[in-house]
Each structure stands twice: as structure tokens, then as C-alpha cells.
């Protein structure tokens, strides 16, 4: 029998689903990038997101449950809110906004009281990778300032950070009950 509450199972399934969506996104990008540090780092990012989906799957199974198949991901609403990215600079900007949200969410989760040890371990493992994701994307974006202009890069990043806030706000409104469970985890 599972030790997970329904709201916890939903949240861990949501994490897994978002990691899978991220892996598919970066996998398709990595396939097309022809050269340089971005080619290398994008492929690593793709591999990490795939691993994270596996870690969450394993975690849920260790807790005696099967992951839920959710019909949406957090990323689904990004294009609607921030507009479709059409070049690598805009793709990296939306990625950075998203990665900041991910690490913020995982940090908040890791500070919640009484979370199960497999969840603690999984969060710790994934956050190591997430910190590197933020670092490489930030450096790649910095490297594009010469080509696109620092003002354009900064404005693009701000646009997607604003879009992320909008998406997160509407996400919290829609799933308030389940997300509030994050701060109410009890020892099992």
C-alpha cells in the first residue's frame, strides 16, 4: 500500500510529467544544433531531464504507487503567455525563466516538513543538475549579448520571466488545493 497522499502523488506525477516534457523539448533542439558549447550543453540538459523523469518514477514506485498520467504540463502554457520563441536566444531565455521556476519549486518542496526520504533524496539529486542548468543557460545567454544586443537579451528574459509569473499564478489558482498540500506534508 502506498504511503503517499493523493495530493503528493499528483505533485510528484506532475514533476515527472514536466521533466518528460523538458526532455522531449531539449531532445528535439539538441538534434538540430550543429556546433559549439550549446550543442554539448543542450545534449547534457536533455539527458538530465530524462534522468529526472526516471528518478521521479522510481521515487513514486519506492513509495508504493504508480505515477498518474496527467493531461498537461507546466510548459504547455508558456507559449501562450510569452509568445513562441523563434531563435536560440529566445529559446534560452524561456528556458532560463522555466529553470528558475523549477529550482524555486524544488527548494520550497525540500523545505516542507515531514517529506518522505525517497522524495528528499530525489530532490537533492535533481537540484544538483538544476543548478548547472541555470549556470549553462545563463552563460550561453550572456554569450549571445554580442550578437543580439544586451538590451534585447535582457528584455527577452524579462518578458519570459513575466510570462512565467503569469503562468505560475494561474497554475496556483487552478490547482490551489493540490499545491497547498506541498506545505502540509506529514511524517509517514
Amino acid at each position, binding site marked *: 500500500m502506498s504511503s503517499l497522499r493523493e495530493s503528493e502523488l499528483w505533485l510528484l506525477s506532475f514533476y515527472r510529467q514536466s521533466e518528460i516534457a523538458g526532455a522531449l523539448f531539449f531532445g528535439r*533542439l539538441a538534434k538540430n544544433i550543429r556546433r559549439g558549447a550549446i550543442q554539448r550543453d543542450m545534449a547534457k540538459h536533455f539527458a538530465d531531464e530524462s534522468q529526472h523523469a526516471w528518478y521521479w518514477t522510481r521515487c513514486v514506485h519506492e513509495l508504493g504507487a504508480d505515477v498518474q498520467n496527467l493531461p498537461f504540463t507546466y510548459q504547455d502554457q508558456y507559449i501562450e503567455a510569452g509568445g513562441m520563441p*523563434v*531563435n536560440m536566444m*529566445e*529559446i534560452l531565455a524561456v528556458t532560463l525563466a522555466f529553470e528558475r521556476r523549477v529550482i524555486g519549486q524544488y527548494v520550497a518542496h525540500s523545505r516542507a516538513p515531514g517529506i518522505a526520504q525517497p522524495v528528499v533524496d530525489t530532490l537533492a539529486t535533481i537540484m544538483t543538475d538544476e543548478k548547472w542548468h541555470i549556470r549553462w543557460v545563463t552563460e550561453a545567454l550572456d554569450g549571445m549579448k554580442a550578437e543580439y544586443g544586451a538590451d534585447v537579451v535582457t528584455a*527577452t528574459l524579462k518578458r519570459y520571466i513575466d510570462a512565467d509569473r503569469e503562468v505560475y499564478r494561474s497554475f496556483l489558482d487552478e490547482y490551489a488545493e493540490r499545491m497547498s498540500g506541498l506545505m502540509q506534508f506529514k511524517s509517514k
Partner: protein
Amino acid sequence: MMLDSNVIKAKVAELLRVDPMKVQDDTIVSDLVADSFALVEMVVELQEQTGIRLMQKDLQGVRTVGDLTQVMVRLSAAA
């Protein structure tokens, strides 16, 4: 170098692996792709192959293949 609209249409057909006859000026671009990300992939690859840099604002209002080729021809002429 100014790009030719027929060259762009041929590249769009090639990148999306669709029959070139289906890539006409009045074809809705989103009708050619399975999902929005395929559109992102195509546009990024199109820039890679043509050397033309597109920004999100350049593609605002672009619905058809003709709209897209007009934007790219204009930008290539200005480059």
C-alpha cells in the same frame, strides 16, 4: 543576399518533410506542422540554413507561408 521566396518555400517543405506542392503562399503555416514545437524547430532551422535572423516580433501576424516568405525576403534584402 536577397532570398527568393521559392527557395524559402522549398526549404520549408524540406524541413517539414511535406510535399512542396502543399507549401503555397496561401497555406496556413500551422496546418503544416503536428504541434507548435515543430514550428519552432522549423523556424530555427530555417534561420540556420539561410543566415537570416528572426525575432519573435518579426513573426507577429504571420499566418501563411506567403507571410513568412515576405518577412524573410524583406529581412534578407535589408541584411
